[in-house]
């Protein structure tokens, strides 16, 4: 039997996540009385996956006990602690404190009770929101049991009203590969309704505001009050500006549903699983509704921003100078009240998108990750020199996680000239470094001539790099105290084959790339183009079977850059050495035979 558990976690609390992982692992181990080696766990995006397998008899009582009791308690405890952490964070939010103070300073002048209203509403938000997050997260965990001895499945999807599902084996059903899909379906069950509610609330406020602001505009004759008013308007515009990315992030989350929808529908789950099918239809409808709402919302936000900005413009609705402070107070009362609601709703929506939008939009499905039985042989075509399979790599940067590679698959054939193109941050350099074994991926494999690069010992890797691979970098990476000839000879020197034959080859290379005249000059005496020529010659010294070039023209002007690319192309035509370059420039990529487009950590076009 096999068991899989998956749940949403709070990415930043790394220490606590390790504890959670250990607790769940030992709970599953106890439940199926397995050894530690039979349990495995990993993080994917902001979800934790734990799985275990054991040959033995199935005890339904234990399954119930785990799902209704121990696992649930572990998760509840975990999210409770996160809730208080989040509450503390909100209370100490300096920026919110400062901006709400500016709003308060103004609305208090209009009506003292409005100041209180703002404080109360913000407090309410600070208590409610962490609680809502806890409820959604608390219902995010699922378990899947594959009881192969009786050919039965049991799902526990905590987000469903009736979370238990049992059913029998269908042919060709790879249950492990469904775990991440079921997890996302379960997540949507809890995430959608409150999200749509949030959009609705925001929309209602904006509609009210738009209506209000169509009336006559006022300014105060009191300069001090007017100054407070203008600052107030500016903060409101700023609050709305902060929402500009929200729709984009939520759209991305919505789009995640496409894959589980397609796959689960394909399987056409029968009998007990019928409920899941029904839910998929419901969720799809809700998502469509959500998309419409988001679209409307982003237009409304833009319009209201403009309204605020134009408030002081006499040509829009006219600006009337209030004759007395009394008149000004009276005139702005209603708008101030709505603005408080707007401030609070905007804050709430922003936190919503921060909570769900910082990681989940970058989730990528990869059923193989959790498939323990996945020791199927990898099929690689004979003419493929470099094969990349299911590559994942994250970087933790302060408060952020960068999802540099999110499941990359790629074959590079012997003798190909390939360009990997994409904007910065698309993951190009990370991919190149993993392919050249300069960096190791979190998941996935790289095969060089069929051999798993990351299974090799460090010394073996070094040897492959030295003998089979050549490198060209944007910054040339020449040794400053070696002259041109010595720099080019260096790799040959390292593998200890500085024979007379090699010496002749080095002279040929220097001539070939057109720097034989500068053979005894040091890098500091060379121009950028010349240094890159030296770097190219050096990459070729050991007659590598593959050359990696990371933005080889990045530091060069376009004329020199073109010359360098022509040189590489000519070299490729003459020797048929495999070349992989990465660049963000289309013009440069055009020199390659094949262009691979990377976007957001995945290959978007071959």
């Amino acid at each position: 039997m096999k068991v899989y558990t998956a749940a949403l976690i709070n990415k930043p609390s790394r220490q606590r996540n390790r504890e959670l992982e250990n607790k769940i692992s030992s709970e599953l181990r106890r439940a199926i009385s397995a050894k530690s080696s039979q349990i495995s766990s990993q993080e994917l995006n902001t979800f934790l996956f734990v799985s275990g397998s054991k040959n033995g008899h199935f005890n339904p009582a234990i399954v119930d006990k785990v799902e209704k009791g121990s696992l649930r308690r572990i998760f509840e405890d975990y999210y409770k602690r996160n809730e208080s952490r989040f509450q503390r964070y909100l209370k100490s939010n300096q920026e919110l404190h400062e901006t709400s103070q500016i709003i308060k300073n103004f609305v208090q002048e209009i009506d003292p009770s409005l100041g209180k209203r703002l404080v109360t509403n913000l407090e309410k938000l600070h208590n409610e929101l962490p609680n809502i997050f806890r409820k959604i997260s608390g219902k995010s965990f699922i378990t899947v049991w594959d009881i192969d001895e009786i050919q039965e499945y049991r799902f526990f999807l905590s987000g469903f009203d009736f979370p238990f599902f049992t059913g029998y084996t269908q042919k060709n059903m790879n249950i492990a590969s469904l775990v991440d899909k079921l997890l996302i379906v379960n997540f949507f069950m809890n995430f959608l309704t409150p999200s749509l509610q949030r959009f609705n609330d925001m929309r209602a406020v904006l509609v009210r505001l738009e209506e209000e602001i169509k009336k006559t505009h006022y300014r105060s004759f009191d300069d001090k009050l007017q100054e407070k008013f203008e600052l107030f308007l500016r903060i409101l515009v700023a609050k709305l500006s902060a929402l500009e990315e929200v729709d984009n992030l939520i759209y991305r989350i919505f789009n995640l549903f496409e894959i589980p929808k397609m796959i689960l529908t394909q399987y056409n789950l029968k009998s007990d699983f019928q409920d899941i099918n029904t839910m998929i239809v419901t969720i799809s409808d809700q998502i469509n509704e959500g998309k419409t709402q988001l679209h409307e919302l982003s237009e409304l936000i833009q319009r209201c921003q403009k309204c605020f900005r134009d408030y002081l413009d006499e040509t829009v609705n006219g600006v009337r100078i209030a004759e007395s402070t009394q008149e000004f107070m009276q005139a702005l009362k209603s708008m101030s009240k709505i603005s408080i609601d707007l401030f609070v709703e905007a804050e709430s929506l922003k936190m919503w998108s921060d909570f769900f939008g910082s990681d989940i939009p970058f989730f990528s499905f990869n059923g193989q990750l959790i498939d323990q039985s996945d020791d199927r042989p990898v099929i690689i075509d004979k003419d493929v020199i470099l094969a990349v399979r299911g590559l994942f790599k994250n970087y933790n940067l302060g408060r952020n996680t960068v999802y540099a590679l999110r499941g990359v698959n790629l074959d590079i054939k012997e003798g190909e000239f390939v360009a990997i193109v994409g904007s910065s941050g698309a993951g190009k350099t990370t991919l190149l470094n993993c392919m050249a074994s300069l960096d190791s991926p979190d998941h996935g494999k790289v095969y060089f001539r069929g051999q798993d690069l990351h299974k090799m010992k460090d010394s073996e890797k070094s040897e492959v790099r030295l003998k089979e691979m050549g490198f060209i970098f944007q910054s040339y990476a020449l040794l400053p105290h070696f002259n041109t000839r010595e720099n080019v000879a260096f790799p040959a020197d390292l593998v200890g084959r500085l024979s007379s034959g090699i010496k002749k080859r080095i002279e040929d290379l220097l001539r070939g790339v057109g720097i034989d005249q500068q053979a005894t000059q040091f890098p500091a005496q060379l121009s950028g183009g010349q240094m890159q020529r030296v770097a190219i010659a050096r990459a070729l010294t050991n007659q590598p079977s593959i050359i990696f070039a990371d933005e080889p023209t990045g530091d060069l002007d376009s004329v020199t850059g073109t010359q360098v690319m022509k040189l590489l192309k000519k070299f490729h035509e003459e020797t048929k050495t495999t070349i992989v370059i990465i660049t963000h420039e289309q013009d440069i990529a055009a020199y390659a035979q094949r262009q691979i487009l990377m976007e957001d950590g995945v290959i978007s076009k071959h």
Partner: protein
Amino acid sequence: MSYGEILEIQGMRFRIIDEQETILKIRRLHKRYNKGKSNEVHALRGVDLDIRKGDMMAIMGPSGCGKTTLLNMIGHLDHNSGGEIIIDYLDTNKLSDTEMTAFRRDNIGFIFQLFNLFPFLTAVENVETPLLLKDIPSGVAREQAKMLLRDLGMGDRLYHYPLELSGGQQQRVAIARALINDPAIILGDEPTGDLDSNTSAEVMKLFRRINALNRQTFILVTHNRWIAEKCDYIVHMVDGKISHIENGPFLED
């Protein structure tokens, strides 16, 4: 009605032009690199151009046509080899190096493709730097930087370091830094070059907003037609000269 305003009459859009408001006048501008040597490059071969206050202009052309050189000349990052640049009636050829530095600091904002943010400074510290260089008290500078970042929707990222920000957010910080001095002219060299298409669209929207709001002049070098079409007009360059000027408005896609 005011200058720069776009009027819509029977579906046609017109920009109101006032000759008085030419902010930048370029005459017979030349630039030669490696002058007198065998590898001399004649990057600009006599450029004449008038740019009005509040214009949003794109410069396009093939690699090596001199578009970045022209931008650098306007930004006075390099000396020209003949001709004149007059900004707000001021002939910049006549300025000393110190005067030039002060002039550049006070009148021109730069936005580069690679953002060039200091990685060891937070967003707000990056933005306030130009003010501190002008000896503005740190408290005042900090408040101004904060407000400007808030305007750009970065209120809750004030104390993040550049590495903790997405590409689009980093570009917003760079934009805030370019705007903090309230420069009359903002120069961008492929300002969206490193960003994906969604984020580029957002940045261009932001430029248009700032341009409409403060009537600041934008000059953007780009090879991306879509970006260029977000501007009022496109100056096309070939071989160090202006080949033609294409007037907008351009069709929305």
